[in-house]
């Protein structure tokens, strides 16, 4: 038997969902009995049948990927409930198995998949999608790239009409329909507090999380998920700031980004300059600005630096 044929057959069995009692299914992939399927490939020994030996790997696979999902999406788990979350993850991972060498990327397709499978979210579709986006943004902000920060000398004598700034790749900008940042912090706080000794405490916390979910009222928020000193933070921002940051990230000039930000803004014209100044100061302090691929005047940074290097040589 060819190596590839064997590996395909074994992987199909290993990645087939477990039963509700967390055992390997009796039915093999593609039909037939799993005991016969396993016996085709796996030797039994004096203590374990072929089925039981294959089942060890089947269970390990699901325990590993499900615990990784639960670790990455505790907020979504609180919204859907533990059992529904686990069933949803089984469906998701069956439809979209990992295609990355790292478990870090296991949830990368979850938002897109949930949009195609909204029944999992029942009447909490908007809330659940908001939470998935926030939790994925948190992962991206935790280990996303940090480019060299923008220095004042990079700006030179730039004018707003041509000045372009870039935002650090790890800064994630979200427009959300629910204050899911508060909910996620509450869920995490509950999970972080040790309570192994008391079932009653665990039960109270579970009820508290359920209450937190059900009483959450919709409210449009704009959020920057970023990191400072290597810890991730959720920072609420104004709608104008959100538009401005997004416009800068998309390569608009500072002047154009400001125009877009205040196009429908209720902030009086007289107050806008001070507002923009305050925002830019804050973001600069947080280190959100980085040197763009093209420099502030539109020329390419890297080429310029390479040229300087060759001159020095």
């Amino acid at each position: 038997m060819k190596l590839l044929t064997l590996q395909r057959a074994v992987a199909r069995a290993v990645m087939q969902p477990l039963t509700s009692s967390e055992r390997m299914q009796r039915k093999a992939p593609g039909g037939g009995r799993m005991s016969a399927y396993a016996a085709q490939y796996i030797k039994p020994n004096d203590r374990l049948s072929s089925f039981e030996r294959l089942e060890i790997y089947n269970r390990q696979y699901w325990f590993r990927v499900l615990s990784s999902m639960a670790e990455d999406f505790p907020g979504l788990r609180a919204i859907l409930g533990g059992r529904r979350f686990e069933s949803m993850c089984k469906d998701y991972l069956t439809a979209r198995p990992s295609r990355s060498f790292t478990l870090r990327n296991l949830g990368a397709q979850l938002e897109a998949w949930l949009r195609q499978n909204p029944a999992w979210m029942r009447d909490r579709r908007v809330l659940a999608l908001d939470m998935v986006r926030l939790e994925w943004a948190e992962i991206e902000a935790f280990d996303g790239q940090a480019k060299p920060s923008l220095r004042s000398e990079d700006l030179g004598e730039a004018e707003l009409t041509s000045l372009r700034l870039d935002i650090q790749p790890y800064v994630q900008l979200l427009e959300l329909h629910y204050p899911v940042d508060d909910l996620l912090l509450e869920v995490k706080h509950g999970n972080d507090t040790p309570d192994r000794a008391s079932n009653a405490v665990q039960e109270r916390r579970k009820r508290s999380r359920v209450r937190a979910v059900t009483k959450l009222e919709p409210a449009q928020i704009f959020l920057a998920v970023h990191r400072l000193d290597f810890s991730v933070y959720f920072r609420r921002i104004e709608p104008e700031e959100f538009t401005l940051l997004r416009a800068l990230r998309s390569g608009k000039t500072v002047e154009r980004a400001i125009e877009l930000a205040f196009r429908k803004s209720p902030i009086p014209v007289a107050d806008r300059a001070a507002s923009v100044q305050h925002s830019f100061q804050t973001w600069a302090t947080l280190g959100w600005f980085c040197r763009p691929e093209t420099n502030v005047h539109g020329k390419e940074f890297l080429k310029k630096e390479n040229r300087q290097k060759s001159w020095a040589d």
Partner: protein
Amino acid sequence: MPGNRFNGFTDYGIGIGLRAPHYDHILSRKPVVDWFEIISENFMIDGGRPLHILEQILEQYKVVQHGVSMYFGSAEKPDREHLRRLKQLVKLTNTPWLSDHLCWGSVDGRYTHDLLPMPYTFEAARLTAQKIREVRDFLEIPLAVENVSSYAEYHVSEMTEWEFLNEVVERADCGILLDVNNIYVSSRNHNFDPLTYINSVPADRVAQIHIAGHSKFQKYILDTHDHPVIDPVWKLYDRAIQRAGHTATLLEWDDSIPSFQEVHREALKANRFLAGRSMAVAV
């Protein structure tokens, strides 16, 4: 053999795995440790805290990279993105050698994130060795393959596990990361004599040794890395270093992780066996 061509001619002593619960202790107390082993995949990222921690560790300690998802035995080409990121990390750590497992875990681009056992066939040995050579040529660094714990054997196997290991490393001309706990676990699960395994391994290819604890279940043993090393595993370690001489040794403790001091103390027990052993003995 304090150093050989499979571990960059180094003499690294006794190390432990770098794990998140110990970061604060290591960075604040700066304990004396011969070296740390890192799981490469945890640091093959673009930025953030893990890389910041690693950079601080590298300022003070020697680091060796150990991978869990190269899947030398998978019947598909190595993932280019994986290799690119791995090489980037190799440049950062200056690891003198790099190890990953003699197993498979992905097929048709789908990852199980597990260390699945190989069928011990000549076809598998040939393909695996070819892949090890490709990866080594790309990374430009000595490679060592680790024997895994296993819970299943295939009908198609044409040789024993140790014969397969020898076949692969000879064809690939690579090193071995000899995990004596894995040999013990597999010997119990598959009813073979672990000493036969140890005695069959080409001692001059052993770049590194792993020791660890495991969990016993009613019908099999699981490689859980959540307990101290048991005496029978220490005996296997003793035999391994009788044959291979002083070899870089690493204690793995990945679950229910106790304090740094407890893990380090457990690792240093290896000194009892290393003391008095010749620096270069191959029996």
